[in-house]
């Protein structure tokens, strides 16, 4: 590469443009080869003005996030919406899931997605299995599966309902999962395969 003579008195302000930079200005340096620390910086053009920005402002993480499940079967009586007592965690990034509910931590308001899959013994012909997402002790949304193909409920065959809901939450809002069926007698909510998870969206 040929050398360029630097004028006497130095380089004028704003004089280094793209044509004067070679890709080796980047490729010639040592690769970081790992995710940048939150205080590592990038150089960006902010409306035409060069600025530096911490990597913590770029991308972001889907947290708080949690994924909980039942460690043992739970019996659900007929005709009553029953809170699912999730007692085990796959993960809970902010320790925000406690006492069977997820509570939005202070400073973590925003848009959250909640999902669940509930698996039970099958229910009788034309009866329903329904899952409710409660927010602050009130029903927010529900999904149901209604059996019409089975002759009768079975302890060996299973029925499942999956659920997804996106909600704008404020700090201290709390979310719980309830299950309802009108089978006529108890149904068993299956351990491990019944789980509830949620995470904050990057917006």
């Amino acid at each position: 590469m040929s050398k360029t003579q630097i004028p006497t008195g130095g380089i004028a302000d704003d004089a280094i443009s793209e044509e004067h930079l070679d890709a080796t200005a980047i490729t010639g340096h040592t690769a970081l080869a790992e995710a940048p620390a939150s205080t590592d910086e990038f150089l960006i053009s902010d409306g035409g003005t060069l600025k530096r920005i911490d990597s913590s402002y770029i991308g972001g993480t889907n947290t708080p996030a949690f994924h909980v499940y039942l460690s043992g079967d739970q019996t659900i009586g007929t005709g009553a919406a029953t809170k699912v007592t999730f007692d085990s965690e796959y993960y809970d990034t902010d320790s925000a899931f406690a006492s069977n509910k997820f509570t939005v931590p202070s400073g973590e308001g925003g848009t959250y997605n909640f999902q669940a899959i509930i698996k039970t013994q099958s229910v009788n012909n034309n009866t329903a299995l329904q899952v409710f997402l409660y927010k602050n002790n009130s029903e927010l949304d529900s999904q149901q599966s209604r059996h019409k193909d089975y002759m009768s409920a079975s302890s060996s065959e299973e029925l499942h309902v999956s659920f997804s809901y996106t909600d704008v939450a404020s700090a201290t809002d709390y979310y719980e999962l309830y299950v309802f069926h009108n089978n006529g007698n108890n149904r068993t909510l299956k351990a491990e395969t019944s789980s509830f998870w949620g995470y904050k969206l990057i917006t």
Partner: protein
Amino acid sequence: MAVDNIYYKVKLYLEANSKTKSEFDSNIALQDDGSGSYIKTWSVSGVAKPTDSQLNALSSNATKEYNNSIIRQTRKASYGDIGEQLDEIYKDIDAWKARIKSIKDANPKE
């Protein structure tokens, strides 16, 4: 206060007051927050929300209804597919009747 087996107790209470279980569709909500079931909402026209003692007085019959629901479920499973039963009836209705009776006899209601 939480009331066990609440669905059948409320159903019996409704029937004793000339109402039907259709009230559950929109006028009654039962809930269990982990400490037992209770009546969360009640808006049955002309019938007051039952007290715990009124519901508990129906306990014996509620248990009977619950147990019979299991018997009905067991019977249905044993009866088998309706299409298969129609075939049984077409081929030998008396044999079908005998099989159904044996299922009922083996699973008597309370």
